[in-house]
């Protein structure tokens, strides 16, 4: 299989799928042209990510990294969450096929964008 078990688990049973109507921040990355598009919704309380949801159009890796990043982010401070890199997500999943590392591993970016959106709104 091109994906390991953990990736397949997050892909077939993705955590935190959906949207948040009254989200505190929304981050969108990707482009349907590339075959991957993600939207991350966050709820924030006292600088802590209390909830994260995602919607993703994309391949198995795109869905798995989206699911993973929500798990990784929930409970973290905004500052901590901003430090989550693409590589961290891939590592947490136990690795991704090389070809997917660059093109479908956008979930961390989407989370960062959602946090930036939240910070912009707060200002």
């Amino acid at each position, binding site marked *: 299989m091109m994906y390991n078990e953990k990736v*397949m688990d997050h892909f077939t049973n*993705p955590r935190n799928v959906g949207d948040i109507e009254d989200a505190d921040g929304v981050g969108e990355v990707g482009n*349907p*042209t590339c*075959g991957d598009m993600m939207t991350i919704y966050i709820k924030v309380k006292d600088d802590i990510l209390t909830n994260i949801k995602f919607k*993703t*159009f994309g391949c198995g890796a*795109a869905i798995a990294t989206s699911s993973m990043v929500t798990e990784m982010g929930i409970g973290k401070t905004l500052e901590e969450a901003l430090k989550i890199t693409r590589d961290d997500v891939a590592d947490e999943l136990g690795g991704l096929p090389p*070809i997917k590392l660059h*093109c479908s591993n956008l979930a961390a970016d989407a989370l960062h964008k959602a946090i930036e959106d939240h910070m912009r709104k707060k200002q």
Partner: protein
Amino acid sequence: MKPIYMDHGSTTAVDPDVVRAMTPYFTEIFGNASSLHSYGEQATVGLNASRQIVASAIGAHPDEIIFTSGGTESDNLAIKGIAYRNQDRGRHIITSNIEHPAVLNTCAYLEKHGFEVTYVPVNDRGLLDVESVKEAVRDDTILITVMHANNEIGTIQPIEEICILARDKGIYVHTDAVQSIGKVPIDVNRIGVDLLSISSHKIYGPKGVGALYIRKGTNIEAISHGGSHERGIRAGTENISGIVGFARAMELAQARFDGDCEHLRSLRDRMIGNILKSIDHSYLNGDLEQRLVNNVNIRFSYVEGEAMLLLLNNKGIAVSTGSACSSKSLKPSHVLEALGLAPEEMHGSLRITLGRENTEAEADRVVEALIEIIGKLRAMSPLA
């Protein structure tokens, strides 16, 4: 539950009857056809009989059949062999924009070596307009290479008409019939083609063997050099067991042709009908009429192909997102691009290619699985 294989456009299981035909050629009739002794003679008998079978299945003379290592080599030999040998007459080649990589990349290679190639575009149903081909013809055109049927969307090209317009101008015509053989009646003289590629592993024969039909009198040169096998056009000890298996597969394809086609067409139409009816925003890629009897290629809005493919695989269902050859490359399919589809539409396309052993129950199970999977994926999609 028993897995369901619906990726016959990628490859097929070898028919047990074919395996049986091959078996003696491993341990008993193992000679080299070039040898003068009895072992060599027996191998030669098997080789000649196979050549006769393959030739007669497409209405050719045995001397017009060159055995190769597969469709890719046949395409390379046809195109380079004609180009190099006839370059004094001209250096222009015409092809379509939906050819298999074996043709497209061979053309691209020739472009880097002094040849010019015109890629005639297909229309939005994946069909070539003979008039556009005619317009592309120049004084220095030496070869038109257009596939008989497309491997992704199954569209069947008007190769007979192309041959007519080429014959008037003394231009050679090659067709890649790797996907059409066994599913579209093929008689090289009725079609009028000069060169025709076929591959064994798409018709329940072994991998690693194919053939190129070369009409008598065609000016072509070898692209591999060595011993004087295959009339000096293709060097290398003949893969007799593979060739015998290929020939048996051709024989079976011929014998079962009518039944196969009827069965496949009925499954295909049932699946296309059920999918389009039961899944919103699903559309057929490629023409419905000029189409291989076993090809179902559908695009589903808002979802991505790999994700569908993997979820189907989890349910034991094997399909493809386009050409098997390109599915690991992540690039959107050049064939779907040629139809003028938007990128997000291409990403959501699935190719189902039916085979002899598929049943109605399997077809229905796959449609049900698709309904469930697409529902699930659309529920996560920001586009839906």
